[in-house]
């Protein structure tokens, strides 16, 4: 009898999530839920100033507080060679400041005490004497000749530049501009934002002197990378380090980097020989951990009158904060910024990028996006709208004219990426149909006559998801593959482990579905485990939407290895040669006698009880998957808005999303990912940003000032799908987790710009606060989000 794949929870089943069983009962196991015997608690004292020399630190009062076990400062870290640590981008970052503080919130001292209240009391009792220094809060200030040198700790660092970098064909692009009928220009700022998972970062370090083993429970999206980093930084043998990433209360890229708090808690446990728990508070999370964006983008587009794009030039200036700690694995300095315009057939392109140090928190730069792809796609879709307007062309038609055609894959982009597949025109059509494009344009015209401002914004994009391939992507030299280990037990039940790490994406549910699809074992018979480096195969973790493209592929591949062995066992059981055995889901049968067959469960039983002569017993295997390419999902997001011309307040009328992420393993979970991403897109477009005053004080250091939308403001979403299977992925899937965050913001901004463009407005920087939109409407001019700069700035 044929197995119904949906019934066994295979591919395409909207299987209800198994992890929910613990979460809905309050039985999740987040790092702060872990309690170890004798555990101490750590709090970090942070700098109130953005740039200052530390004259002295007096911790004597802190030591006197009953219950305090240890006070650590930079000097004490230095005796262990731990005052500084390497970043994932080959820079160095202070663990506890020794010489200077270089951003507000930088770690200055740590107290370890019997409970966190006492640790906090002791932090307050530490007296730090600071000598304030001039502060730099944006990269343009940092470039000035008179700018103070932020990284005077580094050799061969004469200025505040982190890097200069370029990609593309400069000459060909210049020729394209020389031939252009129209040149369209745009300049904008993508403001600093913060991934801000609800759960902040934290760790519990537990060093056992008797065994020499260090176990660290840690909020990390990439436990194996952390193990490697700890081995390098703390000079501990790698087999004596166990990193456990328990349930994560969201990640969004914030939990990829190595943070000083982790390192300090490890040293504190080694020194006290007690487990030491560090749980960051929300302010600490917002002011010191990996942010996203903060890039100035300018560019221009060479256009032919008929609407064809001839070439694109871009220049970016990125603000990296005080330490270059991008957690991005590409060999490209500005990440995948040059994936911009990948869905358009453009002959030539050139990008230059400059990165600068400032007195702001250092980055991780990944916030629910694949390493600068968010900025790239935002600029792309804003530029496309501006170009269509300059040409007087319909914005949908302009896109259609320039899309890469369905029969033109694989397609080499002007910047050198190889896109794999897609049906861009079809996705756009589905979106336009769903929103009722033609009718909306009529309604908009009518409304405008009555003084109402309606707008429609489109954002279409393909983005590279699933780092990497190992040629171009590595972290600290470790190649960006991923892994899966499958153990099928005697009774046909199984345990699967991968090198990825779920943070809400539902791996415990979907990985089992891939195994069910490949082997016919019901998903409910498979338990999935991740996050423990002592048990999981080596993997690079979950970010950049890489789980399904890389680890998911490894799950399929390991299942196929198991199936190959099971086939040999089946031939043995059926007493035919292997060539005569056919497979259908969950069952091998004799080709000439379809009724004669054995199930996968029969094979697993035989693997432990009746293997053919000469075969190793057991039914276990491991697969490492090094993807041939990134996956290239496509998305079309369309928003309609109404702007109140009097107050500048804008409301979303409708939001339509058409996503083509290839084959969907669990449609319910995919849709959940899209809706979550759209919400963060709406957040960035409307309210969510971190800014700094001229003294480097972070404005946005808690949820009173750093605003995440609630259920009330968040619009409803209408989801549609197109499926173009990924040609190089074993199950045809592409990444999806980040598409909506990446592509969504431009839809909202384009919609508001569409509503006001007849007034002469071309750009309002995000977030489109009512004030900014009102200013644009009343003055008929652009509104820049450039932070205020003091005129007497250094």
């Amino acid at each position, binding site marked *: 009898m044929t197995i119904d794949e949906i019934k066994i929870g295979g591919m395409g089943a909207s299987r209800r999530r198994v992890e929910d069983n613990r979460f809905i009962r309050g039985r999740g196991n987040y790092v*702060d839920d872990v309690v170890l015997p004798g555990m101490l608690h750590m709090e970090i004292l942070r700098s109130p100033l953005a740039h200052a020399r530390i004259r002295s630190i007096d911790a004597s009062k802190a030591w006197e507080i009953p*219950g305090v076990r240890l006070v650590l400062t930079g000097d004490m870290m230095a005796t262990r060679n731990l005052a500084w640590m390497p970043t994932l981008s080959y820079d160095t970052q202070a663990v506890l400041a020794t010489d200077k503080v270089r951003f507000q919130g930088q770690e200055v001292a740590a107290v370890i005490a019997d409970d966190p209240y006492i640790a906090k009391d002791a932090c307050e009792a530490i007296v730090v004497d600071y000598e304030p220094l001039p502060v730099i809060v944006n990269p343009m200030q940092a470039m000035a000749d008179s700018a103070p040198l932020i990284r005077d700790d580094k050799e061969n660092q004469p200025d505040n530049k982190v890097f200069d970098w370029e990609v593309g064909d400069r000459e060909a692009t210049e020729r394209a501009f020389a031939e252009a009928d129209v040149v369209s220009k745009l300049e904008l700022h993508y403001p600093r934002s913060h991934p801000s998972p*609800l759960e902040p970062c934290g760790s519990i370090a537990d060093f056992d002197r008797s065994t020499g083993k260090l176990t660290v429970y840690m909020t990390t999206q990439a436990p194996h990378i952390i193990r490697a980093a700890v081995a390098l930084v703390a000079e501990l043998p790698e087999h004596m380090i166990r990193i456990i990433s328990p349930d994560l209360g*969201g*990640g969004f890229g914030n939990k990829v980097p190595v943070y000083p708090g982790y390192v300090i808690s490890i040293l504190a446990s080694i020194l006290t020989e007690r487990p030491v728990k560090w749980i960051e508070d929300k302010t600490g999370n917002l002011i010191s951990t990996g942010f996203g964006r903060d890039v100035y983008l300018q560019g221009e587009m060479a256009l032919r009158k008929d609407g064809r794009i001839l070439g694109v030039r871009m220049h970016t200036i990125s603000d990296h904060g005080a330490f270059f700690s991008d957690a991005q694995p590409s060999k490209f300095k500005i990440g995948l910024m040059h994936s911009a315009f990948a869905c358009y057939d453009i002959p030539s392109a050139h990008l230059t990028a400059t990165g600068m140090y400032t007195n702001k928190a250092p980055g991780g730069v990944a916030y629910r996006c694949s390493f600068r792809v968010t900025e790239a796609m935002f600029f792309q879709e804003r530029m496309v709208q501006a170009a269509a307007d300059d040409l007087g062309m319909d914005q949908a038609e302009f896109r259609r004219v320039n899309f890469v055609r369905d029969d033109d894959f694989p397609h080499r982009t002007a910047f050198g990426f190889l896109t794999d597949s897609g049906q861009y025109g079809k996705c756009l059509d589905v979106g336009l149909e769903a929103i009722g494009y033609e009718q909306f344009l009529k309604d908009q015209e009518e409304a405008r006559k009555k003084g109402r401002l309606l707008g429609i914004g489109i954002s279409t994009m393909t983005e590279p998801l699933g780092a990497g391939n190992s040629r171009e992507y590595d972290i600290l030299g470790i190649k960006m593959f991923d892994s899966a280990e499958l153990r099928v037990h005697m009774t046909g039940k199984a345990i699967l482990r991968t090198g990825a790490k779920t943070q809400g994406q539902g791996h415990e549910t979907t990985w089992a579905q891939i195994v069910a699809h490949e082997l016919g074992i019901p998903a409910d018979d498979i338990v999935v485990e991740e996050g423990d480096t002592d048990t999981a195969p080596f993997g690079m973790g979950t970010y950049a939407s890489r789980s399904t493209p890389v680890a998911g592929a490894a799950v399929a591949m390991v299942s196929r290895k198991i199936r190959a062995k099971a086939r040999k066992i089946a031939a043995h059981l059926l007493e035919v040669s292997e060539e005569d055995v056919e497979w259908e889901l969950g069952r091998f049968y004799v080709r000439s006698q379809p009724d004669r067959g054995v199930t996968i469960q029969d094979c697993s039983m035989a693997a432990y009880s009746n293997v053919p002569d000469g075969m190793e017993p057991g039914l276990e295997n491991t697969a490492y998957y090094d993807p041939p390419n990134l996956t290239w999902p496509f998305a079309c997001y369309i928003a309609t808005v109404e702007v109140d011309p009097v107050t500048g307040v804008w409301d979303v009328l409708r939001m339509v999303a058409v996503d083509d992420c290839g084959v969907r393993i669990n449609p319910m979970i995919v849709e959940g990912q899209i*809706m979550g991403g759209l919400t963060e897109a709406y957040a960035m477009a409307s309210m969510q940003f971190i800014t700094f005053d001229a003294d480097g004080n972070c404005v946005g250091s808690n949820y009173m000032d750093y605003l*995440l939308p*609630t259920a009330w403001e*968040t619009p409803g*979403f209408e989801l549609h799908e197109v499926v173009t299977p990924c040609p190089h992925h074993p199950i045809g899937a592409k990444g999806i987790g980040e598409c909506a965050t990446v592509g969504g913001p431009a839809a909202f901004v384009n919609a508001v710009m569409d509503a006001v463009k007849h007034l002469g407005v071309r750009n309002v920087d995000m977030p489109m606060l009512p004030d900014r939109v009102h200013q644009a409407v009343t003055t008929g001019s652009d509104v820049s989000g450039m932070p205020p700069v003091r005129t007497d700035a250094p």
Partner: protein
Amino acid sequence: MTSLYEEVSVTPVDVPVRRVTITVNGQRRAADIEPRLLLAHLLRQGFGLTGTHTGCDTTNCGACTVLFDGRPVKSCTMLAVQADGHSVETVEGLASASELHPIQEGFKEEHGLQCGYCTPGMMMAAKALLEENPDPSEDEIRWALSGNLCRCTGYQNIVKAVMWAADKMRASAG
């Protein structure tokens, strides 16, 4: 091995504590606590009820929402000592021994959670809503949950989850 460790103070902590008695999920529980202890911390560390999460420090996120004498409160913004003599209901009290509460079922059925961190607070706020309003509209649900932040779901499925629960609860109330 290290001079640092020798500096460690081992002075026992001696601060005044107060005895509080709180009915938690129907059971009377007592604790000796410092007045400054937050209710969320007593629930988590004192009573081991770690389903109540703390997400922010400024009374915005609502991950710590519990029912205090039946009304939803943010337990990070109450002192534990204030709960003396009162009743507190947490996520751990939602399910009976044999079955889930319809709100729990609804969150699973409608994919109303991803990372799960906001979920307990969200469900407690939903419970308070449904006790007052058994048949809420989408807007009423969005409004009632607007003191609870979710970073993963985009809320749409949370709204559906609460509707699912409301339908089931009305059906079983007959």
